[in-house]
């Protein structure tokens, strides 16, 4: 099996899907000749031509909005937003058009499209190349939201997203683009949207996370394991709809829940998971469910690493849970 980075997994998924289905096409800033600023679409315009891989003008509204029209008309567009931070000039297209098209038309029109975007911090990107806006999408009915953390998942979930009949926001933690290499099948496989992965079984506490911080969460779990504390590590992978069943089963078993996310804490996905588990497992929790999140500040360049959940911060919170 070939060894791939996340970027290669994206390329591979896009290539396979474009090859399989003529309706699949790409559009975004610099996705064509340049192959994207992270090279996720490298070589695809050469292979599939400038009609199926469109270098768009500099407008996220044009990109997302055109994808809605393309999808409604029968294509399967994959739009790229150059950085998740830049989705906001186009977010009305995502919220008012893409998310609500099926609903407002009573199912007559649909927008089967994918909006890919590099997300998260850790690359010295400052305010506008570091944000994690997934809560905005998850709070908006009509969108599905995937946040990947491994090359293998990336390929299987991106292919599934492209075939999904609903608009899917597909978030790729940019600091993981080339950080992890693993075996990824060269041939066809799909992973289900909405299913979490248990990255590590454990009985002492449950660590729920997704995307970029999975790295720190797994490091923290390893450190705990060295001290004979067995954390069960869950990677949500999809945050809307998130896999409540898997999370509840684990938290019911361990009685201790820590949710880790690098987005600002207030009204975040982490808040959602904690709120839900508190409501549903009230009697089975042995300690208060906790969150370790990004701080409620804009993303500061100077504190690029400290802003995100550190292994220390995760371990400190786990300790609080275990010693409760």
């Amino acid at each position, binding site marked *: 099996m070939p060894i791939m980075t996340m970027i290669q997994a994206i390329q591979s998924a896009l290539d396979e899907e474009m090859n399989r289905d003529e309706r699949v*096409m790409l559009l975004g800033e610099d996705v064509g000749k340049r192959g994207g600023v992270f090279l996720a679409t490298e070589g695809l315009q050469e292979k599939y031509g400038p*009609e*199926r891989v*469109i270098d*768009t*003008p500099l*407008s996220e*509204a*044009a990109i*997302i*909005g*055109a*994808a*809605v*029209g*393309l*999808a*409604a*008309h*029968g*294509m399967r*567009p994959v739009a790229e937003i150059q950085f998740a931070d830049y989705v906001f*000039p186009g977010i*009305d*297209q995502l919220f*008012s*058009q893409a998310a*609500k*098209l*099926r*609903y*407002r*038309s*009573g*199912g*007559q*029109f*649909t927008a089967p499209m994918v909006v890919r975007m590099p997300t998260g911090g850790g690359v010295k990107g400052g305010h506008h190349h570091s944000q994690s806006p997934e809560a905005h999408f998850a709070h908006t*009915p*009509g969108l*599905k939201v995937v946040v990947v953390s491994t090359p293998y998942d990336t390929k299987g979930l991106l292919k599934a997203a492209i075939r*999904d*009949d*609903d608009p899917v926001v597909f978030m790729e933690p940019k600091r993981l683009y080339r950080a992890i290499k693993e075996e990824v099948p060269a041939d066809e496989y799909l992973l289900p949207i*909405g299913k979490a992965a248990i990255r590590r079984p454990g009985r002492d506490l449950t660590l729920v996370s997704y995307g970029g911080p999975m790295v720190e969460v797994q490091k923290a779990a390893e450190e705990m394991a060295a001290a004979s504390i067995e954390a069960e590590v869950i990677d949500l992978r999809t945050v809307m*709809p998130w896999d*409540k*069943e898997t999370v509840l089963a684990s938290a019911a078993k361990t009685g201790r829940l820590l949710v880790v996310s690098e987005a600002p804490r207030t009204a975040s996905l982490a808040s959602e998971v904690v709120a839900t588990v508190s409501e549903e497992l009230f009697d089975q929790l042995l300690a208060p469910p906790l969150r370790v999140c990004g701080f409620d500040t804009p993303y500061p360049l100077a504190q690029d690493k400290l802003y995100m959940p550190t292994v220390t911060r995760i371990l400190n919170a786990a300790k609080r849970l275990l010693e409760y």
Partner: protein
Amino acid sequence: MVQEKIHFEPFSQEPIRLIDEQGHWVAPFAHGLPPETLRRFYRDMLAARLLDEKLVLLIRTGKTSFIAPHAGHEAAQVGIAHALQKGHDWLFPYYRDMGLVLALGVPLVEIFGQTLGTAADPAKARQMPSHPGSKKLNVFTVCSAIASHIPPATGAAIGMKLRRTGQVAVCTFGDGATSEGDWHAGVNFAAVQRAPVVFICENNRYAISVNIRQQTASANIAIKARAYGIPGYYADGLDVLASYFVVRWALEQARTGAGPSLVELVVHRFGAHSSADDDSRYRSREELAAERQQDPLLRYQRFLEQQGLWDAQWANELRLEIAKELEAALQEALKAGEPNPLEMFDDVYAACPWHLEEQRRLLAEELA
């Protein structure tokens, strides 16, 4: 052949007009349209007007919650409807286009179903009145957010070009819409892609209370096309044949690969902005009265009279016939009854995820 002669230059100083206020044909070419077609235009304009009056009545009697009157826009809307290939081309309309979607063939019962929020609305009564849509007729369901349908129209047109379907996307909007960023983004992208889309502004010179002079400092709307390197046509939208021929020209150009264009049809808004508006707060009754003198139906009636195609008896019969159709459709729409409240959870996604199942159950218990 007539077709060969019909051709328009963009960026005229004065609006393109084919019929003058007295009903005279003032174009340098023959219209070449058969009498049935000319009379059909009249019928559709009259139906649009009577629909508007019926909607106003539904508001007055408290039967519906909202309308956006289209009286004054009929010539423009009927001209557009006939210029496109029904059911083949796509229409991306806005909320003031009830006359347009009617002329395009959206069934009256669906229109009233949507207006009354009954189960006769194919879109399940989820949006306010004046938000029609029809998959069958390629009418992209209206979205309230002004100008948000411009980039989707561009996208559909790119798809048409890519798949060589020979279709054109027609996208309508008001003068206010041209100030939105998404309008700019969508038109610009279409121009670069030479996508087959015709952008049509129904310029009634008001965005609710905001006069066009506070909306833009440009001389007119058509000239904005210069920013995108595409032609802009400035036409009299009170003249149904000017509307028809100019839009048809723009569609032909788009269909044969010449790319998008912007058409401005100058119209009047005879009513308030909507049933929630009181326009006496911001426009004088004199201004309005003067505009009402320029009724597009009257102008076209004069034209037909001069062509020997109009008489009072025919018009009266038409009026009665349409009134009957309207009433019948209204009753049918009413009969469909209220939609099932639990439908609220359908169509958010193709399949209902767990959290919506939970919420559906919660509501079902409450309603039980």
